[in-house]
Protein backbone atom coordinates (compact mmCIF):
# COMPACT_ATOMS: atom_id res chain seq x y z
CA UNK A 1 0.00 0.00 0.00
CA UNK A 2 2.65 2.52 1.05
CA UNK A 3 4.82 1.07 -1.69
CA UNK A 4 2.36 1.92 -4.42
CA UNK A 5 1.85 5.36 -2.92
CA UNK A 6 5.58 6.08 -3.04
CA UNK A 7 5.63 4.81 -6.58
CA UNK A 8 2.76 7.10 -7.51
CA UNK A 9 4.35 10.18 -5.91
CA UNK A 10 7.64 9.30 -7.58
CA UNK A 11 5.94 9.01 -10.92
CA UNK A 12 4.31 12.43 -10.59
CA UNK A 13 7.57 14.05 -9.49
CA UNK A 14 9.45 12.38 -12.31
CA UNK A 15 6.91 13.55 -14.86
CA UNK A 16 7.23 17.15 -13.62
CA UNK A 17 11.02 16.92 -13.87
CA UNK A 18 10.78 15.50 -17.36
CA UNK A 19 8.44 18.27 -18.49
CA UNK A 20 10.83 20.90 -17.08
CA UNK A 21 13.72 19.20 -18.86
CA UNK A 22 11.90 19.28 -22.16
CA UNK A 23 10.60 22.88 -21.95
CA UNK A 24 13.47 24.44 -23.91
CA UNK A 25 13.17 21.65 -26.46
CA UNK A 26 9.45 22.25 -26.94
CA UNK A 27 9.94 26.03 -27.08
CA UNK A 28 12.50 25.54 -29.81
CA UNK A 29 10.07 23.65 -32.01
CA UNK A 30 7.00 25.74 -31.13
CA UNK A 31 8.52 29.14 -31.85
CA UNK A 32 10.31 27.98 -34.96
CA UNK A 33 6.88 27.93 -36.62
CA UNK A 34 5.72 31.37 -35.48
CA UNK A 35 6.24 34.69 -37.21
CA UNK A 36 7.72 37.57 -35.27
CA UNK A 37 4.37 39.37 -35.34
CA UNK A 38 2.64 36.37 -33.77
CA UNK A 39 5.29 36.27 -31.04
CA UNK A 40 4.78 39.95 -30.24
CA UNK A 41 0.99 39.99 -30.38
CA UNK A 42 0.14 36.64 -28.87
CA UNK A 43 3.11 34.99 -27.15
CA UNK A 44 1.27 31.87 -26.01
CA UNK A 45 -1.00 31.46 -29.02
CA UNK A 46 -0.67 28.75 -31.63
CA UNK A 47 0.64 29.99 -34.98
CA UNK A 48 -2.19 30.51 -37.51
CA UNK A 49 -0.36 28.03 -39.69
CA UNK A 50 3.01 26.29 -39.64
CA UNK A 51 5.38 28.93 -40.97
CA UNK A 52 7.83 26.84 -42.91
CA UNK A 53 9.11 30.04 -44.52
CA UNK A 54 11.07 30.50 -41.27
CA UNK A 55 12.96 27.38 -42.24
CA UNK A 56 13.73 28.45 -45.79
CA UNK A 57 14.93 31.85 -44.56
CA UNK A 58 16.97 30.19 -41.80
CA UNK A 59 18.48 27.73 -44.25
CA UNK A 60 19.69 30.64 -46.37
CA UNK A 61 21.15 32.29 -43.27
CA UNK A 62 23.11 29.32 -41.91
CA UNK A 63 23.76 26.89 -44.76
CA UNK A 64 27.25 28.17 -45.55
CA UNK A 65 28.19 28.12 -41.86
CA UNK A 66 26.98 24.52 -41.53
CA UNK A 67 29.05 23.69 -44.60
CA UNK A 68 32.10 25.26 -42.97
CA UNK A 69 31.52 23.32 -39.74
CA UNK A 70 31.13 20.03 -41.60
CA UNK A 71 34.28 20.70 -43.61
CA UNK A 72 36.30 21.29 -40.44
CA UNK A 73 34.72 18.28 -38.72
CA UNK A 74 35.34 15.83 -41.54
CA UNK A 75 39.01 16.72 -41.97
CA UNK A 76 39.61 16.73 -38.22
CA UNK A 77 37.93 13.35 -37.78
CA UNK A 78 39.90 11.83 -40.66
CA UNK A 79 43.17 13.23 -39.32
CA UNK A 80 42.56 12.30 -35.70
CA UNK A 81 41.46 8.76 -36.56
CA UNK A 82 44.36 8.07 -38.93
CA UNK A 83 47.13 9.58 -36.82
CA UNK A 84 45.70 8.28 -33.56
CA UNK A 85 45.31 4.71 -34.79
CA UNK A 86 48.78 4.73 -36.34
CA UNK A 87 50.42 5.68 -33.03
CA UNK A 88 48.10 3.33 -31.17
CA UNK A 89 49.31 0.54 -33.42
CA UNK A 90 52.99 1.30 -32.78
CA UNK A 91 52.51 1.40 -29.01
CA UNK A 92 50.51 -1.83 -29.05
CA UNK A 93 52.62 -4.03 -31.34
CA UNK A 94 56.17 -2.64 -31.40
CA UNK A 95 59.02 -2.81 -28.92
CA UNK A 96 61.49 0.05 -29.02
CA UNK A 97 63.67 2.11 -26.66
CA UNK A 98 61.93 4.87 -24.67
CA UNK A 99 58.53 3.40 -25.42
CA UNK A 100 56.94 4.10 -22.08
CA UNK A 101 58.38 7.62 -21.55
CA UNK A 102 57.14 8.54 -25.02
CA UNK A 103 53.70 7.19 -24.21
CA UNK A 104 53.65 9.16 -20.97
CA UNK A 105 54.59 12.26 -22.94
CA UNK A 106 51.55 11.73 -25.18
CA UNK A 107 49.13 10.93 -22.37
CA UNK A 108 50.53 13.84 -20.34
CA UNK A 109 48.77 16.11 -22.80
CA UNK A 110 45.56 15.35 -20.96
CA UNK A 111 46.88 17.35 -18.02
CA UNK A 112 47.05 20.48 -20.17
CA UNK A 113 43.82 22.47 -19.94
CA UNK A 114 42.87 24.48 -23.03
CA UNK A 115 42.62 27.45 -20.68
CA UNK A 116 46.42 27.47 -20.38
CA UNK A 117 47.13 27.20 -24.09
CA UNK A 118 44.42 29.34 -25.65
CA UNK A 119 46.44 32.58 -25.62
CA UNK A 120 49.81 31.21 -26.84
CA UNK A 121 48.04 28.98 -29.35
CA UNK A 122 46.48 32.09 -30.81
CA UNK A 123 49.98 33.58 -31.10
CA UNK A 124 51.25 30.45 -32.87
CA UNK A 125 48.33 30.38 -35.28
CA UNK A 126 48.83 34.09 -35.97
CA UNK A 127 52.53 33.60 -36.67
CA UNK A 128 51.76 30.68 -38.99
CA UNK A 129 49.32 32.99 -40.83
CA UNK A 130 46.48 30.58 -40.17
CA UNK A 131 44.01 32.99 -38.64
CA UNK A 132 41.09 33.39 -41.01
CA UNK A 133 41.84 29.87 -42.23
CA UNK A 134 40.12 26.57 -41.38
CA UNK A 135 43.56 25.05 -40.83
CA UNK A 136 43.87 27.27 -37.79
CA UNK A 137 41.10 25.14 -36.33
CA UNK A 138 41.85 21.76 -37.84
CA UNK A 139 45.50 21.38 -36.82
CA UNK A 140 45.03 22.20 -33.11
CA UNK A 141 41.87 20.06 -33.03
CA UNK A 142 43.72 17.03 -34.41
CA UNK A 143 46.48 17.48 -31.80
CA UNK A 144 44.07 17.09 -28.91
CA UNK A 145 41.51 14.68 -30.34
CA UNK A 146 44.06 12.09 -31.54
CA UNK A 147 44.63 11.15 -27.87
CA UNK A 148 41.40 9.22 -27.51
CA UNK A 149 42.28 7.30 -30.68
CA UNK A 150 45.76 6.44 -29.43
CA UNK A 151 44.45 5.10 -26.12
CA UNK A 152 41.48 3.13 -27.44
CA UNK A 153 43.39 1.72 -30.43
CA UNK A 154 46.35 0.72 -28.28
CA UNK A 155 44.10 -1.28 -25.97
CA UNK A 156 42.35 -2.96 -28.86
CA UNK A 157 45.48 -3.73 -30.93
CA UNK A 158 47.16 -5.23 -27.87
CA UNK A 159 44.32 -7.73 -27.58
CA UNK A 160 44.83 -9.05 -31.11
CA UNK A 161 46.72 -12.39 -31.36
CA UNK A 162 50.35 -12.12 -32.51
CA UNK A 163 49.89 -15.00 -35.01
CA UNK A 164 47.79 -12.69 -37.15
CA UNK A 165 50.71 -10.33 -37.64
CA UNK A 166 53.38 -13.05 -37.70
CA UNK A 167 51.76 -14.75 -40.67
CA UNK A 168 51.60 -11.52 -42.67
CA UNK A 169 55.19 -10.69 -41.74
CA UNK A 170 56.41 -14.06 -43.03
CA UNK A 171 54.58 -13.37 -46.27
CA UNK A 172 56.67 -10.23 -46.57
CA UNK A 173 54.08 -7.64 -45.52
CA UNK A 174 55.54 -4.29 -44.56
CA UNK A 175 54.73 -2.64 -41.23
CA UNK A 176 52.45 -0.18 -42.97
CA UNK A 177 50.66 -3.12 -44.60
CA UNK A 178 50.18 -4.77 -41.21
CA UNK A 179 48.73 -1.57 -39.81
CA UNK A 180 46.46 -0.65 -42.68
CA UNK A 181 45.34 -4.07 -43.91
CA UNK A 182 45.21 -6.15 -40.73
CA UNK A 183 44.91 -3.93 -37.69
CA UNK A 184 42.65 -1.16 -39.02
CA UNK A 185 39.89 -3.30 -40.52
CA UNK A 186 39.57 -5.16 -37.22
CA UNK A 187 38.85 -2.03 -35.24
CA UNK A 188 36.24 -0.26 -37.32
CA UNK A 189 33.76 -0.01 -34.39
CA UNK A 190 36.38 1.72 -32.25
CA UNK A 191 37.24 4.06 -35.10
CA UNK A 192 33.56 4.94 -35.43
CA UNK A 193 33.39 5.72 -31.70
CA UNK A 194 36.43 7.97 -31.95
CA UNK A 195 34.99 9.63 -35.03
CA UNK A 196 31.65 10.35 -33.37
CA UNK A 197 33.13 11.78 -30.17
CA UNK A 198 35.54 13.92 -32.20
CA UNK A 199 32.83 15.12 -34.56
CA UNK A 200 30.53 16.22 -31.73
CA UNK A 201 33.31 18.00 -29.83
CA UNK A 202 34.46 19.88 -32.92
CA UNK A 203 30.99 20.71 -34.24
CA UNK A 204 29.89 22.16 -30.88
CA UNK A 205 32.99 24.23 -30.25
CA UNK A 206 32.32 27.95 -30.21
CA UNK A 207 35.28 29.59 -28.53
CA UNK A 208 38.17 28.68 -30.80
CA UNK A 209 36.41 29.38 -34.12
CA UNK A 210 35.20 32.68 -32.66
CA UNK A 211 38.80 33.64 -31.81
CA UNK A 212 40.43 32.41 -35.01
CA UNK A 213 37.96 32.84 -37.85
CA UNK A 214 36.61 35.81 -39.73
CA UNK A 215 32.86 36.49 -39.68
CA UNK A 216 32.77 35.69 -43.41
CA UNK A 217 33.87 32.08 -42.80
CA UNK A 218 31.94 31.50 -39.60
CA UNK A 219 31.06 28.03 -38.30
CA UNK A 220 27.53 27.09 -37.31
CA UNK A 221 28.01 27.87 -33.61
CA UNK A 222 29.31 31.34 -34.51
CA UNK A 223 26.35 31.91 -36.81
CA UNK A 224 23.93 30.73 -34.11
CA UNK A 225 25.32 33.13 -31.50
CA UNK A 226 25.35 35.91 -34.10
CA UNK A 227 21.67 35.34 -34.88
CA UNK A 228 20.74 35.74 -31.22
CA UNK A 229 22.68 38.97 -30.90
CA UNK A 230 21.42 40.75 -33.95
CA UNK A 231 18.34 38.64 -34.31
CA UNK A 232 16.18 39.73 -31.41
CA UNK A 233 14.09 40.89 -34.30
CA UNK A 234 13.12 37.37 -35.35
CA UNK A 235 12.83 34.49 -32.90
CA UNK A 236 11.12 32.19 -35.40
CA UNK A 237 14.00 32.46 -37.84
CA UNK A 238 16.67 32.00 -35.14
CA UNK A 239 14.95 28.94 -33.70
CA UNK A 240 14.48 27.39 -37.12
CA UNK A 241 18.20 27.98 -37.72
CA UNK A 242 19.09 26.25 -34.44
CA UNK A 243 17.02 23.24 -35.45
CA UNK A 244 18.59 23.04 -38.90
CA UNK A 245 22.07 23.39 -37.41
CA UNK A 246 21.38 20.65 -34.87
CA UNK A 247 20.48 18.12 -37.55
CA UNK A 248 24.09 16.94 -38.06
CA UNK A 249 24.62 16.29 -34.34
CA UNK A 250 21.24 14.58 -33.98
CA UNK A 251 21.98 12.32 -36.94
CA UNK A 252 25.46 11.48 -35.69
CA UNK A 253 24.21 10.70 -32.18
CA UNK A 254 21.28 8.59 -33.35
CA UNK A 255 23.58 6.72 -35.69
CA UNK A 256 26.10 6.01 -33.00
CA UNK A 257 24.22 6.23 -29.67
CA UNK A 258 25.83 3.08 -28.34
CA UNK A 259 29.31 3.97 -29.52
CA UNK A 260 28.93 7.52 -28.28
CA UNK A 261 28.02 6.72 -24.67
CA UNK A 262 30.78 4.12 -24.57
CA UNK A 263 33.31 6.66 -25.78
CA UNK A 264 32.14 9.42 -23.45
CA UNK A 265 32.29 7.24 -20.40
CA UNK A 266 35.68 5.79 -21.29
CA UNK A 267 37.43 9.15 -21.47
CA UNK A 268 36.69 12.81 -21.89
CA UNK A 269 37.82 14.10 -25.25
CA UNK A 270 40.22 16.99 -25.48
CA UNK A 271 39.74 19.75 -27.99
Amino acid at each position, binding site marked *: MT*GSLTKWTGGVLLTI*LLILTLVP*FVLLIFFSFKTQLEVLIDFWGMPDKLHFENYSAAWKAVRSSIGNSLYVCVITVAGAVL*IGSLSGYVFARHKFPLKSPLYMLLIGVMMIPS*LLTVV*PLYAIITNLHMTHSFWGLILPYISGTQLLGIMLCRTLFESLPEELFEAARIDGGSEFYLYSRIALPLCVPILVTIGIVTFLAVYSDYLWPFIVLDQSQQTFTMAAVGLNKSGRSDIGLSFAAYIIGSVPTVLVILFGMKYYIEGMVS*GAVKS
Partner: protein
Amino acid sequence: MNLAKWRRYGISYLFLIPSFLFIATFLYYPVLLAFFHSFTKWNLVTSEWVGLDNFKKFFNEGTFATGAKNQLIYTLTDVVKAIVFPLIGAELVYLVGGNKIKYLFRTGFILPMLLPGVVSILLWQNIYDPTNGLLNQLLHAMGFTSTHAWLGEEKTAIWSIVMMGLPFISGLPFLIFYAAIGNMNQEQLEAARIDGANGWNVFTKMHLPFLMPQFKIVIILTILGSLQDYVKIMILTGGGPGVATTNPAMIMYNAAFGSSQYGYGSAIGVALFLVILVLTIFNLKFLKTDY
Protein backbone atom coordinates in the same frame (compact mmCIF):
# COMPACT_ATOMS: atom_id res chain seq x y z
CA MET B 1 71.61 -8.13 -36.56
CA ASN B 2 72.02 -4.86 -34.72
CA LEU B 3 71.38 -2.93 -37.88
CA ALA B 4 68.15 -4.83 -38.53
CA LYS B 5 67.03 -4.10 -34.99
CA TRP B 6 67.63 -0.38 -35.38
CA ARG B 7 65.87 -0.43 -38.73
CA ARG B 8 62.82 -1.81 -36.94
CA TYR B 9 63.08 0.87 -34.25
CA GLY B 10 63.39 3.44 -37.01
CA ILE B 11 60.06 2.38 -38.45
CA SER B 12 58.41 2.67 -35.04
CA TYR B 13 59.73 6.19 -34.55
CA LEU B 14 58.79 7.13 -38.11
CA PHE B 15 55.18 6.10 -37.48
CA LEU B 16 55.10 8.20 -34.31
CA ILE B 17 56.32 11.39 -35.97
CA PRO B 18 52.86 12.76 -36.92
CA SER B 19 51.48 12.41 -33.38
CA PHE B 20 54.48 14.01 -31.77
CA LEU B 21 54.74 16.78 -34.34
CA PHE B 22 51.16 17.75 -33.52
CA ILE B 23 51.42 17.65 -29.73
CA ALA B 24 54.79 19.41 -29.75
CA THR B 25 53.60 22.27 -31.94
CA PHE B 26 50.08 22.78 -30.64
CA LEU B 27 50.23 21.59 -27.03
CA TYR B 28 53.67 21.50 -25.41
CA TYR B 29 55.11 24.53 -27.18
CA PRO B 30 52.08 26.69 -26.17
CA VAL B 31 52.56 25.55 -22.57
CA LEU B 32 56.17 26.78 -22.64
CA LEU B 33 55.07 30.03 -24.26
CA ALA B 34 52.36 30.50 -21.64
CA PHE B 35 54.80 30.10 -18.76
CA PHE B 36 57.43 32.33 -20.36
CA HIS B 37 55.05 35.10 -21.37
CA SER B 38 53.28 35.12 -18.03
CA PHE B 39 56.34 37.14 -16.95
CA THR B 40 56.21 39.52 -19.91
CA LYS B 41 54.22 42.25 -21.50
CA TRP B 42 53.38 40.67 -24.84
CA ASN B 43 51.67 41.91 -27.99
CA LEU B 44 52.19 38.59 -29.86
CA VAL B 45 55.17 40.04 -31.77
CA THR B 46 57.45 41.62 -29.19
CA SER B 47 57.59 41.06 -25.47
CA GLU B 48 59.16 42.81 -22.53
CA TRP B 49 60.15 41.12 -19.25
CA VAL B 50 58.12 42.43 -16.32
CA GLY B 51 58.81 39.80 -13.66
CA LEU B 52 55.86 39.05 -11.43
CA ASP B 53 53.93 42.18 -12.37
CA ASN B 54 51.19 40.30 -14.22
CA PHE B 55 50.47 38.07 -11.25
CA LYS B 56 50.53 40.99 -8.82
CA LYS B 57 48.16 42.89 -11.08
CA PHE B 58 45.79 39.94 -11.28
CA PHE B 59 45.54 39.41 -7.54
CA ASN B 60 45.39 43.11 -6.69
CA GLU B 61 42.80 44.19 -9.19
CA GLY B 62 39.25 44.62 -7.89
CA THR B 63 37.87 42.24 -10.49
CA PHE B 64 39.82 39.36 -8.96
CA ALA B 65 37.84 39.46 -5.70
CA THR B 66 34.54 39.51 -7.60
CA GLY B 67 35.74 36.83 -9.98
CA ALA B 68 36.90 34.57 -7.16
CA LYS B 69 33.64 35.03 -5.26
CA ASN B 70 31.64 34.27 -8.40
CA GLN B 71 33.81 31.23 -9.10
CA LEU B 72 32.97 29.93 -5.64
CA ILE B 73 29.26 30.34 -6.39
CA TYR B 74 29.60 28.67 -9.80
CA THR B 75 31.64 25.75 -8.47
CA LEU B 76 29.49 25.02 -5.42
CA THR B 77 26.25 25.20 -7.38
CA ASP B 78 27.76 23.17 -10.23
CA VAL B 79 28.59 20.37 -7.81
CA VAL B 80 25.09 20.39 -6.30
CA LYS B 81 23.58 20.45 -9.77
CA ALA B 82 25.76 17.54 -10.91
CA ILE B 83 25.06 15.34 -7.88
CA VAL B 84 21.65 16.01 -6.35
CA PHE B 85 19.40 16.42 -9.36
CA PRO B 86 20.79 13.67 -11.60
CA LEU B 87 20.76 11.31 -8.62
CA ILE B 88 17.12 12.09 -7.82
CA GLY B 89 16.30 11.61 -11.49
CA ALA B 90 18.09 8.26 -11.74
CA GLU B 91 16.63 6.93 -8.47
CA LEU B 92 13.10 7.95 -9.42
CA VAL B 93 13.38 6.28 -12.80
CA TYR B 94 14.21 3.00 -11.02
CA LEU B 95 11.51 3.57 -8.40
CA VAL B 96 8.81 3.99 -11.01
CA GLY B 97 9.89 0.68 -12.50
CA GLY B 98 8.58 -1.13 -15.57
CA ASN B 99 11.18 -1.54 -18.29
CA LYS B 100 9.26 0.36 -20.92
CA ILE B 101 8.57 3.33 -18.63
CA LYS B 102 12.18 3.36 -17.48
CA TYR B 103 13.38 3.47 -21.07
CA LEU B 104 10.92 6.24 -21.91
CA PHE B 105 12.02 8.45 -19.02
CA ARG B 106 15.69 7.83 -19.56
CA THR B 107 15.39 8.73 -23.22
CA GLY B 108 13.38 11.84 -22.35
CA PHE B 109 15.99 13.06 -19.92
CA ILE B 110 18.88 12.71 -22.33
CA LEU B 111 16.97 14.16 -25.29
CA PRO B 112 18.31 17.73 -24.79
CA MET B 113 21.83 16.30 -25.13
CA LEU B 114 21.12 15.91 -28.83
CA LEU B 115 21.50 19.67 -29.27
CA PRO B 116 24.93 21.29 -29.53
CA GLY B 117 25.76 22.94 -26.20
CA VAL B 118 25.76 26.41 -27.71
CA VAL B 119 22.17 25.98 -28.89
CA SER B 120 21.05 25.09 -25.33
CA ILE B 121 22.78 28.20 -24.01
CA LEU B 122 21.09 30.34 -26.65
CA LEU B 123 17.69 28.85 -25.79
CA TRP B 124 18.18 29.86 -22.18
CA GLN B 125 19.27 33.30 -23.31
CA ASN B 126 15.89 33.51 -25.03
CA ILE B 127 14.07 32.28 -21.92
CA TYR B 128 15.65 35.16 -19.96
CA ASP B 129 15.00 37.73 -22.70
CA PRO B 130 13.43 40.89 -21.21
CA THR B 131 10.72 41.31 -23.86
CA ASN B 132 10.03 38.00 -25.55
CA GLY B 133 11.45 35.68 -22.92
CA LEU B 134 9.43 32.81 -21.53
CA LEU B 135 10.19 33.73 -17.92
CA ASN B 136 8.84 37.27 -18.13
CA GLN B 137 5.86 36.15 -20.21
CA LEU B 138 5.12 33.50 -17.62
CA LEU B 139 5.30 36.02 -14.76
CA HIS B 140 3.17 38.39 -16.79
CA ALA B 141 0.56 35.69 -17.41
CA MET B 142 0.48 34.94 -13.69
CA GLY B 143 -0.30 38.58 -12.96
CA PHE B 144 3.07 39.97 -11.95
CA THR B 145 3.64 43.38 -13.44
CA SER B 146 7.34 43.86 -12.74
CA THR B 147 9.60 42.31 -15.33
CA HIS B 148 13.34 41.88 -15.28
CA ALA B 149 16.20 41.92 -17.72
CA TRP B 150 17.39 38.77 -15.97
CA LEU B 151 20.85 38.66 -17.50
CA GLY B 152 21.26 42.42 -17.57
CA GLU B 153 20.70 43.32 -13.94
CA GLU B 154 23.43 43.02 -11.38
CA LYS B 155 21.28 41.27 -8.79
CA THR B 156 19.75 38.63 -11.03
CA ALA B 157 22.47 37.98 -13.62
CA ILE B 158 24.65 35.45 -11.81
CA TRP B 159 21.72 33.45 -10.47
CA SER B 160 20.17 33.40 -13.92
CA ILE B 161 23.37 31.80 -15.19
CA VAL B 162 23.35 29.34 -12.27
CA MET B 163 19.74 28.35 -12.91
CA MET B 164 20.37 27.74 -16.59
CA GLY B 165 19.60 24.12 -17.42
CA LEU B 166 16.93 23.61 -14.75
CA PRO B 167 16.23 20.86 -13.58
CA PHE B 168 19.87 19.89 -14.31
CA ILE B 169 19.18 16.21 -14.92
CA SER B 170 20.15 15.96 -18.56
CA GLY B 171 23.82 15.11 -18.82
CA LEU B 172 26.65 12.72 -18.19
CA PRO B 173 26.19 12.41 -14.37
CA PHE B 174 22.63 11.13 -14.88
CA LEU B 175 23.88 8.43 -17.25
CA ILE B 176 26.69 7.48 -14.84
CA PHE B 177 24.36 7.18 -11.84
CA TYR B 178 21.71 5.40 -13.87
CA ALA B 179 24.19 2.81 -15.09
CA ALA B 180 25.66 2.32 -11.59
CA ILE B 181 22.29 1.81 -9.92
CA GLY B 182 21.42 -0.72 -12.61
CA ASN B 183 24.63 -2.61 -11.79
CA MET B 184 23.81 -2.99 -8.08
CA ASN B 185 23.28 -6.45 -6.69
CA GLN B 186 19.52 -6.84 -6.97
CA GLU B 187 19.38 -9.92 -4.72
CA GLN B 188 21.06 -8.04 -1.88
CA LEU B 189 18.61 -5.17 -2.23
CA GLU B 190 15.71 -7.60 -2.30
CA ALA B 191 17.03 -9.39 0.80
CA ALA B 192 17.27 -6.10 2.67
CA ARG B 193 13.70 -5.29 1.75
CA ILE B 194 12.47 -8.68 2.94
CA ASP B 195 14.32 -8.09 6.22
CA GLY B 196 12.11 -5.05 6.66
CA ALA B 197 14.30 -2.18 5.44
CA ASN B 198 12.18 0.60 4.00
CA GLY B 199 12.98 2.45 0.78
CA TRP B 200 14.72 5.32 2.54
CA ASN B 201 16.99 2.95 4.46
CA VAL B 202 17.87 1.05 1.31
CA PHE B 203 18.73 4.37 -0.35
CA THR B 204 20.90 5.77 2.46
CA LYS B 205 22.54 2.54 3.70
CA MET B 206 23.02 0.72 0.41
CA HIS B 207 22.70 3.00 -2.63
CA LEU B 208 24.71 5.96 -1.33
CA PRO B 209 27.76 3.95 -0.17
CA PHE B 210 27.67 1.92 -3.36
CA LEU B 211 27.65 5.08 -5.49
CA MET B 212 30.60 6.67 -3.66
CA PRO B 213 33.12 6.09 -6.51
CA GLN B 214 30.71 7.69 -8.98
CA PHE B 215 30.20 10.68 -6.67
CA LYS B 216 33.94 11.17 -6.42
CA ILE B 217 34.43 11.13 -10.18
CA VAL B 218 31.53 13.45 -10.85
CA ILE B 219 32.59 15.92 -8.14
CA ILE B 220 36.21 16.16 -9.25
CA LEU B 221 35.29 16.44 -12.93
CA THR B 222 32.67 19.06 -12.12
CA ILE B 223 35.09 21.17 -10.08
CA LEU B 224 37.73 21.00 -12.80
CA GLY B 225 35.12 21.75 -15.45
CA SER B 226 33.64 24.68 -13.59
CA LEU B 227 37.04 26.40 -13.24
CA GLN B 228 37.44 26.21 -17.02
CA ASP B 229 33.88 27.08 -17.98
CA TYR B 230 33.59 30.53 -19.41
CA VAL B 231 31.98 29.96 -22.81
CA LYS B 232 28.55 30.04 -21.21
CA ILE B 233 29.35 33.28 -19.37
CA MET B 234 30.83 34.75 -22.52
CA ILE B 235 27.69 34.08 -24.55
CA LEU B 236 25.13 35.00 -21.90
CA THR B 237 26.62 38.13 -20.33
CA GLY B 238 30.25 38.56 -21.37
CA GLY B 239 30.99 38.71 -17.64
CA GLY B 240 28.69 41.69 -17.09
CA PRO B 241 26.81 43.75 -16.22
CA GLY B 242 30.06 45.39 -15.14
CA VAL B 243 31.92 42.41 -13.69
CA ALA B 244 28.90 40.92 -11.89
CA THR B 245 29.11 37.47 -13.53
CA THR B 246 32.79 37.23 -14.40
CA ASN B 247 35.12 34.45 -13.23
CA PRO B 248 38.90 34.14 -13.43
CA ALA B 249 38.78 32.32 -16.78
CA MET B 250 36.53 35.04 -18.18
CA ILE B 251 38.95 37.69 -16.87
CA MET B 252 41.71 35.86 -18.72
CA TYR B 253 39.73 35.84 -21.96
CA ASN B 254 38.86 39.53 -21.70
CA ALA B 255 42.44 40.47 -20.87
CA ALA B 256 43.87 38.63 -23.88
CA PHE B 257 41.20 38.91 -26.53
CA GLY B 258 39.32 41.95 -25.28
CA SER B 259 42.20 44.29 -24.56
CA SER B 260 45.18 42.53 -26.24
CA GLN B 261 47.13 42.09 -22.98
CA TYR B 262 48.46 38.69 -23.98
CA GLY B 263 51.14 38.49 -21.28
CA TYR B 264 48.60 39.30 -18.60
CA GLY B 265 46.18 36.75 -20.06
CA SER B 266 48.93 34.11 -20.06
CA ALA B 267 49.65 34.83 -16.39
CA ILE B 268 45.99 34.27 -15.42
CA GLY B 269 46.02 31.07 -17.48
CA VAL B 270 49.12 29.87 -15.61
CA ALA B 271 47.59 30.73 -12.23
CA LEU B 272 44.43 28.79 -13.07
CA PHE B 273 46.48 25.90 -14.41
CA LEU B 274 48.36 25.64 -11.12
CA VAL B 275 45.06 25.44 -9.22
CA ILE B 276 43.81 22.75 -11.61
CA LEU B 277 47.11 20.86 -11.29
CA VAL B 278 46.97 20.86 -7.48
CA LEU B 279 43.38 19.59 -7.56
CA THR B 280 44.30 16.89 -10.08
CA ILE B 281 47.28 15.70 -8.04
CA PHE B 282 45.19 15.75 -4.87
CA ASN B 283 42.62 13.64 -6.67
CA LEU B 284 45.17 11.12 -7.98
CA LYS B 285 46.95 10.84 -4.63
CA PHE B 286 44.11 10.83 -2.13
CA LEU B 287 40.81 10.19 -3.83
CA LYS B 288 42.25 7.82 -6.44
CA THR B 289 39.32 8.16 -8.77
CA ASP B 290 39.91 6.58 -12.10
CA TYR B 291 38.79 8.57 -15.10
